[in-house]
């Protein structure tokens, strides 16, 4: 452990605490609630805040009425099937928005109930779930001379967004304007290429829900089913459009019949009580560690503070939406952070009892505890990664907090605790063996040592 590590860890700690502190309480010295920078005309603003799930914080509830009678040309699909399809599309849109773990239920067969965690902008939430997102591309009408008249007609059958591959936002031109990149899947890609041949040097109209977004002029014959939608977007509106297109169009027009704020599903009072309970639990753990391990215990508690601050900062930065399931992942990772320290301290004690010096014991303790810590953490991360990949909803949230927690706990146990331990033995007053939880003099009767020291220490421990 050299000096530069100490600086790196100190800087990380300060940054973590800066991220953790609610920004509305201190604006100074940065008058911005988050990370803001301005570089050559581009400004970015990322608000840092804790995202709490529906179960802990409550959120916005929308009740949507399905209107199958408003489907142009009517429909033969049953109301139950329409309801299911609607819920799938809304689920995709909300996940695309990054809001985690919504509640989406059917209410009877002609209504859908949606709850979104902590969305303050009701208008935005309503637009997101009610917008039909029906994309159509129309060909220009031509007069007798073959030039465009400025009006458009649908192709037969209409060329729609039903067959799009995943779209994405890209930046084009000298002013880096955001555009939405799309690509038709077969067989619409062939029709798109044909359209560019038929209407070369004429405009085509791109419409969303019957409104024109843009009418670009085709300047060359396309060679693939790709294209872009330009339309005076901001990065955000371009992203929203991309999310809508990727989620597919709603199968039926929706109307918001009720919108209101709702309390946490776990109950406001229940959440409050549980937070206090969690704090009591952590305090007990800290107390126990200090009483049992003395000086290393104090160091472990300091490392745990660092751990908590850093993990919480990562949660706020990613951002991770914290639900009770996420908190479970967090508690588990705290347990593992404590465990890594306990493993190291037990090894250090063993080395000290074998008559080694403090410095040698610290290094040996770390070296010999390391494989256990590494492989047990790897097994947990492996499981969490698989759960994150294949899991849905609650399980995904749990896996994400667990991954973050275990990675940070590994870093803390291996680097921060070691650094603090080595810093402590620089002070002669902190080098007393009693402070490290072993008797002042090494045990005289240690039995056979080399090669069998494991058994000998077992006797001492027992």
């Amino acid at each position, binding site marked *: 452990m050299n000096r530069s590590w100490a600086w790196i860890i100190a800087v990380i700690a300060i940054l973590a605490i800066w991220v953790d502190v609610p920004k509305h309480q201190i604006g100074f010295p940065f008058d911005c609630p988050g990370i803001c920078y301005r570089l050559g005309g581009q400004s970015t603003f990322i608000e840092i805040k804790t995202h709490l799930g529906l179960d802990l914080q409550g959120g916005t509830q929308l009740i949507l009425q399905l209107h199958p009678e408003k489907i142009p040309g009517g429909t033969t699909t049953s109301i139950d099937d329409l309801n299911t399809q609607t819920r799938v599309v809304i689920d995709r849109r909300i996940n695309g928005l990054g809001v985690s773990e919504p509640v989406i239920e*059917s209410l009877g067969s002609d209504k859908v109930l949606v709850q979104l965690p902590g969305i303050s902008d009701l208008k935005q939430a309503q637009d997101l779930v009610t917008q039909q997102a029906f994309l159509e591309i129309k060909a220009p009408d031509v007069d007798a001379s073959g030039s465009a008249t400025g009006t458009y007609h649908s192709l037969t059958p209409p060329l729609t967004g039903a067959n799009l591959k995943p779209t994405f936002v890209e930046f084009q031109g000298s002013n880096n304007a955001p555009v939405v990149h799309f690509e038709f899947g077969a067989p619409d890609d062939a029709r798109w290429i044909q359209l560019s041949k038929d209407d070369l040097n004429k405009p085509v109209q791109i419409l969303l829900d019957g409104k024109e977004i843009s009418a670009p002029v085709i300047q060359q014959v396309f060679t693939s089913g790709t294209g872009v939608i330009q339309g005076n977007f901001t990065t955000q509106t371009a992203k929203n459009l991309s999310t809508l297109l990727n989620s597919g169009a709603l199968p039926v027009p929706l109307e918001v019949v009720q919108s209101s704020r709702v309390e946490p599903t*776990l*109950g406001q009072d229940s959440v409050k009580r549980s937070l206090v309970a969690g704090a009591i639990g952590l305090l007990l753990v800290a107390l126990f560690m200090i009483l049992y391990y003395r000086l290393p215990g104090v160091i472990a508690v300091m490392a745990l503070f660092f751990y908590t601050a850093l993990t919480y900062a990562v949660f706020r930065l990613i951002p991770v939406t914290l639900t009770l399931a996420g908190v479970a992942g967090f508690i588990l990772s705290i347990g593992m952070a404590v465990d890594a320290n306990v493993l190291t301290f037990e090894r250090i004690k063993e080395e000290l009892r074998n008559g080694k010096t403090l410095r040698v014991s610290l290094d040996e303790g770390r070296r010999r505890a390391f494989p256990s810590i590494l492989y047990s953490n790897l097994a947990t991360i492996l*499981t969490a990664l698989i759960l994150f990949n294949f899991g849905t909803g609650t399980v995904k949230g749990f896996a994400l907090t667990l991954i973050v927690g275990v990675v940070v706990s590994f870093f803390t146990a291996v680097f921060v605790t070691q650094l603090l331990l080595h810093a402590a033995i620089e002070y002669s007053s902190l080098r007393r063996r009693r402070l490290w939880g072993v008797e002042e003099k090494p045990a005289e009767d240690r039995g056979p040592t080399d090669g069998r020291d494991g058994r000998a220490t077992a006797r001492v421990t027992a």
Partner: protein
Amino acid sequence: MLFRFVERKFWYFALSALLIVPGVFFLSIGGLKPGIEFKGGTLLDLRFTVPPPAAELHDTLTSLGHPEAVVQGAEGGRMEVRTLTLTSDQTVAVESALKAKYPGVYLDDNASSVSPSFSAELVTNAVRSIVFASILIVLLIAFAFKEFGWSAFRYGIAAIIALLHDALVVLGLFAILGYFFNIEVDSLFVTAVLTIIGFSVHDTIVVFDRIRENLHLNRGEALNPVINYSIMQTLARSVITSLTVVLTLLALYLFGGYSMRTFALALVVGIISGTYSSIFNASQIISLWQEIEDRLRHRGGRGPAGARAAA
């Protein structure tokens, strides 16, 4: 003084069986009751003049025979209550009972049926992921213990057996609770089982790593005594680590809100089981495996039995 962890292994296996077999029985007769999140039910939109705390309304509904009710407050004095599917008679009964206790309460709109908010997909996906993860964990442990050659795989498999043990203890307990007390499982329960699985593997690997190290330091030593003192050496750590986690969870169980009780209970039981299986089951499986192998080898007349460690 050495505690005889290995020699008494059949007693420990018997204790585990005693805990697991009744649970598995109630699991197989469908004791595990899926909650509203998985089954859907009825949504009652209640309007109060003065809304009571969610916990109080939940208690009231429990006394009316609906312990499964999920209560969620909303603005404007509204409380949304989700229960299992109610007939219209039952709805009327609940409404009038509530009117007696909270004057002025009325049911806005009619009670409507709600679909499950979590699909069965959540559970099947989670189970599939665990199977996949288990295979990778076996490979990871086999890699970590590669100095033992093919025997390394038995460590991985023993860790997975211990994992199954802990999952079955908790699933079994909730099947029994579900059968006798109608306690239901929700998505939080799924998370709790996942947490327990993570903890179980973590705990087992630490004990196994000590066995690995001691076998390495004491070449030629028989396996059973090495296992005995390896468990002895990791005992303090196993107990302390579990204790810290159980401490936090116990605080949550005793002082936390009503909605977190089952969750905390599942975790406490699972963590204790995980500690038990890593001390009293996992290494004993390795020992048993070695003994069976030695016996088979002895019968086949190839070399002396029991003298060598797993290496």
